[in-house]
């Protein structure tokens, strides 16, 4: 599903080139649950952003579902975001001016889903996450764990093939974190490919494959059963 070949990411300052990612080769197939780990500044988030097409590699080729993603134009990238990927963030990133319901609905609107169908899909999500009673609340009125639930609901309401989670539990305490991780592995078992970035060894164990990055290089790639 995802194939990265010789991916480099660097920043040029006056006399110096700072490398963030060096020569990354990575294959991720559909249905995997991958964790990217490593110390701060190792390039984890950059790698995730490149996979999510929020960022572009400086060099290298990236194929998503056998399409050359590094050659996609702005419009195609928007299509990609609409149809294939969902994002979950450490800081939740809900829109303050929108209720829970509307936040979940947002991607569907951009996808052009009809109003009736949207209502059904959002209602399903609210049901699944037990948030029906909270649907008219604003993000500021929710706890951190609940906000992240809304974030996940928003990420998966459009039925993406790939879910990218950048430290989804980073702002949560451990009970809430556990709950979120269980939800993610459940989603994975339903067939969504998940790539997460985390510092937390315990939460890394929810996934079957752990990639460790050090200074922009893949230092280990373990697949457990």
């Amino acid at each position: 599903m995802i194939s990265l070949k010789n991916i480099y990411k660097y920043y040029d300052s006056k006399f110096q080139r700072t490398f963030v990612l060096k020569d990354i080769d990575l294959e991720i197939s559909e249905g995997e649950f991958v964790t990217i780990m490593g110390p701060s500044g190792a390039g984890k988030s950059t790698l995730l952003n490149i996979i999510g097409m929020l960022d572009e590699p400086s060099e290298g080729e990236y194929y998503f579902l056998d399409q050359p993603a590094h050659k996609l134009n702005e419009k195609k990238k928007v299509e990609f975001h609409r149809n294939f990927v969902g994002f979950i963030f450490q800081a939740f990133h809900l829109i303050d001016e929108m209720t829970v319901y509307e936040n979940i609905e947002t991607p569907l609107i951009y996808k052009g889903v009809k109003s009736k169908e949207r209502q059904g899909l959002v209602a399903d999500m609210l049901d699944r996450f037990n948030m029906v009673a909270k649907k008219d609340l604003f993000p500021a009125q929710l706890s951190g764990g609940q906000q992240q639930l809304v974030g996940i609901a928003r990420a998966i309401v459009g039925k993406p093939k790939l879910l990218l989670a950048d430290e989804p539990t980073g702002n949560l305490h451990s009970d809430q974190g556990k709950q979120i991780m269980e939800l993610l592995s459940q989603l994975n078992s339903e067939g969504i490919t998940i790539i997460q970035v985390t510092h937390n060894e315990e939460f890394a164990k929810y996934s079957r494959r752990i990639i460790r990055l050090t200074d922009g290089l893949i230092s280990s790639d373990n697949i457990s059963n």
Partner: protein
Amino acid sequence: MIRNFLKTSVRFLMRNKTYSLLNFLCLSFGQTCAIIAALYILNIFSYDKFHKNYDRLYQVEAIVTFFNGDRFLKEPLSASLVGDLNANVPELEAITRVVPGGLNFINGDRSFTEQGIYADDNFLNIFSFPMASGGNSNEISELNTIVISERMALKLFETTDCIGKTAVIKDNEKQEAYKITGVIRNVPSQSLLQFDFIIPLSKFLAGNPLANETGASSCHYWALVSENSDITKINNKIRDLIKNQETTLNQELFLFPLREKILYNYAGGRRVWDGMQYVVIFGCIAFAILLIACFNFINLAVAMNIKRYREAGIKKVAGASRSAIIFQYLTETFVITAISLLFSIILVRLLIPLVNSQFNAGISFTIADFRVVLILAAIMISTGILSGLLPALYLSSSNPLSVLKGEIVKSHSYSFFRQSLIVFQFVIPVVLIIFMMIIKTQDNYMRDYDMGFQNDKLIVIGNTRNLEAHEGSLKTDLLSIPGIEAVSFTNCIPARGTTVSNEVTWTGKDASEKLHFWCINTDYQYNTAINLNITDGRYFSYSFPSDSASFLINDIAAGVFEYDEPLGKTISVDGKEGTIIGVFKDFHSVDLAGPFAPTIISLSPACRNNILIRFSSGTYSSLKDKIRDVYIRYEPEMSFAPTLYKDLPSYSNLDMSSDLAGTACFIALLLACLGLSGLASFSASSRTKEIGIRKTNGATTLSVIKLLGIGYTRWLIISFIIALPIAFLLGRIFLMRFYFHSPLPLWVFVAGVCITYTIALLSVSVQSWRAASRNPVEALRYE
């Protein structure tokens, strides 16, 4: 989709009330100005459109070349010209002659003075003034017939059904009856020709045989040009019609289209802006104010969008395309614009009477007019796009990556742009303030200018036939009021123009030459009243019985006559011969916009429309009532309307221009300050942490205010640097229009800058003080 956009937009606006209110106010004011200006322009451009032949109507006018090469426009032409025009120019389908005049109508013991016209009987065929009753258009063919307006019919007969009734016109002691043969609807205010009655021109010609003389100034000529005819060709044909009769008259005829009459005028033989001037001034000022309002919006929006940048990033990640974000933001802008437009419409309704009375604009405002709806739509759309597009582009350029990483978004790349907006916003009020003060200076200069006569303590009242008839006893009665020194009947209010004559001859004159002279008809007291600067000889005096046939001339006229010793020489004016007994100097008979004109003063009772009263002691207000008592004794029917000479409306209409510039600069300054204070509140809040840290390190409230003030001072100084040369140039161009003008006053530049700077700093100081006086602990905790 739109519904969703709107919902979040409204929530955002409700949560940020100061921001919304500021934007709303600025846009409302801006749009109000734009609407009023558009209505004003619309009004000017809809003049005379109701005429069926609007595009084919032309006034035949003449340009006269004066002895020194000066050229001026002459509208009234000889009544006999119609024959030449008809014979030589077949392209003129019809010609009608019009003579405007005021007449006194009586009905029982009541009497009214009405303004009307004498016109040829084809007048109502050429122009489309609709008849209320009477039907066919030959209503004004018989000698003693009259067509009146509905307004006048109601006044005279209290009914509009008055065909066949008789209107009585009182001229001195003579009364004459006219049969009413038609009633026309009231002449629309958007008509160049304004009148309440029409009397056959033949009636006028019967009483004024001189009107037929070649070169006479009696009738206005209106011509209906046949379709598809070439105006330049006609102009070539008619140009020399008068010259061919009398070479020396030096008058060239041309066609002045009706559709341009309200917009243009001729000065010195060149076409100049008349109404067009106000179209341009109103238009430019309103556009500038609207721009300020939009820039405010942009500035505040960009400042505010730092908060919304994240939202845009999230939406992009959720699959929003760039255009969707632009579209959403534009929708939001249009919501604000539409709400403020509604408010503007209310404001316009409230303000229109004020504008009409202040600027004599004659604007009306109805939503029912599709042109008004178009204007409103155009203003709303342009405002929305002008103010919404830039912030929308900025917002949509949000890079989701940096936003979501939690980086603090700074709009550095836009800060230069935003500062230039502020600079521009302040350029406009500074220029307007300075320009207004230059206009005021010139106005005062003209009022106080030594025009070769004494102009203070001079009262002007209109002459009437009754007063004229009792000249002697009126003067005796007025002079018996303590404080009044002189009472003079004249046709010339100094510097307000007078009668022009080309029938002046002198010894040594080339007999074929006909030059124009400004002639003042007056009495023995004119000099006592205005105190002429007589350099040679003397003024008329009762002790010289021969003076009734004598003249005073000014130095310019002496130059034209080429008399080195003019005293005792003989000249003849309008066929009346007499001796020159005095020469005066530096006297402005016309106005300060033009040069000195050759002027001749004679003792003559003709055409004396005004009475000048000079007083030496007492005040205007105390004398006014006493003069009224005398006035009523001789003229019980007219209302008494005296004016102090200095209060006369300025000849060049400077009051209106300076009022306009004043109002505009007030609004512009208000808007610019609103925007600046809005921005100040955002920048103060974004610097809360910095201020907190500075204060914990020992900065005082005052030093923080200074720090914030310096930032604004820099922008303001740049805008002053840009504004001053613009104001200087505008001021120079404006003053150059006047032949006699004040030097460009330098103090107004200093004053303009100081005023703007003070007001601008005051408007930000509240915000600065609030930020600076805050407890630093609180500020840092807040962060």
